[in-house]
């Protein structure tokens, strides 16, 4: 028994907490994706690039001499007009097409490609490592954890809770849910559906940017940083149920824990296929994912 406790304290628990800090960031990414899909039926393939833009903007804000807390507040605000414009200029153009799903997917994919190259053009292709904003570590119940990871878990959880409250408890969220459920009915009830679409897209993009700010100190910053992350986020969204907020949270925690714990026993190379395998199995049993879509929740 004491052996197990030691194992838990020094091996398992830190790994789980690491997984949790990654999980929180993945959930923030997935939330943006799933809210955009739930409302607009748009698969945003450029989400990973928006995440990268968030991280790079944080570098720029930092280079101007501002500290981390300013980045945290300012970068999401800078992302809002980017997302707004993307929705207005790209998504709206094909929104009423019969093949909206595929067309918006292709458009955002092309846009992501352009954005990635623009980042390379502006910031150069090299990897940059921002300083850790909160140094040191804390011992909790005998488990040592870097302070920044601790902050990430707490702050991220608070943020997820805030998103939840906005979507399910606020008037604004009620409008979004109404528009997702039946846009014509919502429109006749006086919901400014067009505005809600653009606003929601911008909100999702801001969340991606915020994840970028939060994860930059851990994973470094480079133009293609979104690529690896986006697959995990999509996996979370599919397993949780496309368009489901609860689903994104549950699947986000679950899958990142599987990844974290499994990489103790198998080569990390195989933890990706393992997570993907779980997704395939979920799809076999419940093609709609674990939870239902936004409007129906």
């Amino acid at each position, binding site marked *: 028994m004491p052996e197990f406790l030691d194992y838990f304290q020094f091996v398992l628990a830190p790994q789980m907490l690491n997984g949790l800090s990654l999980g929180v960031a993945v959930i923030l990414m997935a939330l943006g994706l799933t809210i955009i899909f739930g409302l607009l039926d748009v*698969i945003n393939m450029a989400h990973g690039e928006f995440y990268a833009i968030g991280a790079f903007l944080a570098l720029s804000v930092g280079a101007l001499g501002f500290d981390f807390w300013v980045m945290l507040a300012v970068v999401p605000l800078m992302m809002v007009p980017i997302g707004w414009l993307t929705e207005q200029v*790209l998504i709206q*153009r*094909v929104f009423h097409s019969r093949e909206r*799903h*595929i*067309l918006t*997917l*292709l*458009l955002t*994919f*092309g*846009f992501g*490609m*352009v954005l*990635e*190259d*623009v980042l*390379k*053009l502006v910031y150069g292709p090299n990897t940059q490592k921002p300083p850790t904003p909160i140094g040191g570590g804390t011992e909790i119940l005998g488990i040592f954890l870097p302070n920044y990871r601790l902050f990430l878990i707490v702050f991220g959880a608070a943020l997820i809770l805030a998103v939840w409250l906005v979507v399910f408890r606020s008037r604004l969220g009620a409008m979004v849910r109404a528009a997702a459920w039946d846009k014509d009915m919502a429109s006749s009830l006086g919901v400014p559906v067009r505005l809600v679409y653009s606003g929601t897209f911008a909100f999702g993009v801001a969340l991606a940017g915020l994840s970028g700010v939060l994860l930059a100190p851990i994973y470094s910053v480079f133009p293609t940083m979104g*690529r690896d992350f986006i*697959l995990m986020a*999509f*996996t979370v969204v*599919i397993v949780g149920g*496309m368009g489901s907020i609860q689903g994104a949270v549950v699947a986000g925690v679950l899958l990142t824990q599987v990844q974290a714990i499994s990489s103790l026993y198998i*080569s990390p*190379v*195989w933890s*990706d*296929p393992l997570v*993907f395998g779980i*997704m*395939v199995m979920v*799809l*076999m049993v419940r*093609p709609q994912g674990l939870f239902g879509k936004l409007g129906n929740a």
Partner: protein
Amino acid sequence: MRDVMLSGRLATRGGGAVRNAVHLLALVFLLLAIAFGVIAWAAGDTFYLRLATEALIFAGLAMSVDILLGYTGLLSLGQALYFGLGAYTSAVVLRDIGPSFWLAMGMTLVLATLAGTLGGFIANRVKGVYFALITFGLAQVVAKVVYNTRELGASDGLIGVPEITIPLGLFTVEAANPAAFFLFVLAFVLLLYAGIAYLMDTPFGRTLTAIRANDRRVPFLGSNPLVYRMLAYVLAANVAALTGALYPMLRGFVSPELMFFHTSGNAVITVIVGGVGTLIGPILGSVLLTALRSVVGTWTEHHLIVIGVLFMLSVILLPKGLIGAIRPWLQHRLTGSETPR
């Protein structure tokens, strides 16, 4: 019987003029390509012949995307998986077993059929955007495993694939000879094109088109859409893999990049820009985009911006791609009458 033949011809999508226009394009393309090959050979060029050969190889990958997207209505974002499978299989066979073209192609055919069946079984559980995301994930995961597998050269890929001689009965083709190999790949890709074009105009292919148009009615006509989607998927996997198998013969190496999303995405771009559901569009698209990349590449290394913008414009402005844009004009010239839809 005469009546039957008549409606047989008329029952083709939009009648004969459309097909004639496409076949004419294929013929013009073939002649231009041969002319290019001869001129480049006479000028003693290697670089452009190699580049053009590569464009044709990636045209095969694009055709495989078109079988799924343009005919069956399935967007695959992971077709590079099978392209890479073919390339790696070919590289391993040529390097470690023996420099036999036919053995490499045979192994590729077997493995692509197996992998395509397995992948199709997973991906065809779902439709629409889910299909796109599953194929994306499947390719990404396999690519990562290859990227980390030392036996397959990991991130470096496999180098040192020997230059082979391809026996073709009456004569042989030296892969090391740029002009000869270019003509060989040209013939290979156009034969694939002809084969697929034939298949897409049989009742089998027409049923795929029906699935694209309305997959909910197909079962009530007595066909199981899942079976057809599986067949289309395995066919597309083989087309991608067989052209992928030519890659190491051209370049002498393979790298994990061939499997990554970049490659799959480029194939989708090629199909959209060239013309979805036309088969010849992806071939022309591949040649044009390769040329464009090479031209833009002389000015700036940021050709992704140019290609990306071009791609987005195609999606918005040219839903039928370049072929869709020139075909009405061609048909008009061919028939001298108003253009049918």
